[in-house]
């Protein structure tokens, strides 16, 4: 059997993807990580970002996930995302809208803790903008 990983992307509303993949890149809370074949069981929080799935034929597809968590076990990789959709549907304009929103939250934030959280959110989205730009040049 070819070394592969079974991947499922689930949002609260619907099962988005269930497939066999060669490798999957996941936006973990502490950086991107690539999941290949049999991976040690891992539970990680996700930050908003792109999940890149290379399927068994070598075709690459990207999905946008808006936070959530990933559960890697013997059964495969399950991504539970609050928001998930194909990256092709998630364009630059939308990310910019999120940045604007994050900016608003930041300016409305009071206290150090709230400000830190808001700033973090803003940074995540700004990074994402860069990532999506590089993503579209690759594909």
């Amino acid at each position, binding site marked *: 059997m070819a070394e592969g990983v079974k991947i499922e992307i*689930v949002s*609260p509303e619907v099962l988005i993807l269930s497939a066999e993949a060669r490798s999957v890149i996941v936006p973990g809370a502490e950086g991107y990580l690539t999941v290949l074949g049999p991976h040690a069981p891992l539970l990680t929080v996700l930050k908003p970002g792109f999940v890149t799935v290379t399927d068994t034929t070598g075709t690459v597809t990207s999905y946008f996930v808006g936070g959530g968590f990933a559960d890697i076990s013997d059964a495969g990789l399950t991504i539970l995302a609050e928001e998930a959709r194909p990256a092709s549907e998630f364009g630059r304009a939308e990310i910019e809208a999120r940045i604007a929103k994050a900016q608003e939250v930041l300016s409305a934030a009071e206290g150090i803790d709230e400000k830190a959280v808001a700033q973090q959110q803003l940074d995540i989205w700004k990074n994402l903008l860069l990532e999506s730009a590089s993503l579209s040049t690759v594909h």
Partner: protein
Amino acid sequence: MPSLKDLKNRINSVKSTQKITKAMQMVAAAKLRRAQDAAESARPYAERMEKVLAGLGAAYEGRPDAPALLAGTGKDDVHLLVVATGERGLAGGFNSSIARMARDHAHKLIAQGKTVKILTVGKKGADILKRGLAKNITEQISLRDVKQLGYVTAQEIGNKVLAMYQAGEFDVATLFYSRFQSVISQVPTAQQLIPAKFDKAEGDVEAKVGSAIYEYEPDEEAILEDLLPRNVSVQIFRALLENNASFFGAQMSAMDNATRNAGEMITKLQLSYNRQRQAQITKELIEIISGAEAL
């Protein structure tokens, strides 16, 4: 005795009622299918979430450093009841059975000397609970403008509940909704939201898997802290979807009953209409014959 014309009018009015209930039944049936699909496709997420949390939660049970959403505030004084009902009526006992359950629960808690706050989701539940518990209702959320029930809606409610919890406005939150079992049976259910409670049986199985060899990133505590608030929204979302499916199920069977009753009524009315018409013809005949005989 109503006249022939009266009877005819009544038959017509019942007939048009029957047409309406029939149409409503069919609409409910179509919507039920969609609601059921939605509830079903939401299931994998909620189940996964529950499994992971049950595993993690079991490890933290009884520990003093467990997050507040899991361990509770340590008090049991103020209860928040989140009562999810439908936005519309005409669904048999659907709304009232949820509201009744919530009311019984509230009265029980009040009798124990606890403070009860109620947050209603859906107009009908608020209408029913206003009688007798008006001063306990702290907030009403209407779903009337929500076309498609999405996770965002549940998240809004969830965030509201969490904000209240963080502000220390309550100690225990319970969610009331109707679980969809089948078209003819919907079970009003009370589920404790905060502190989070997990199915023991499921937790035991998963605890083994969960605590055994898993690596956690960033770490268990951070994950738990991230997941618990999310879980509240997910549970609410699931409840809303189940409720939605239950509502259409209840409406469908209520409308089915109404259609059948209207049908029976029409038969009865038609019978007495025919009888009266015959009696009238007989009477007229007798009059003509006896008139002719008199000549």
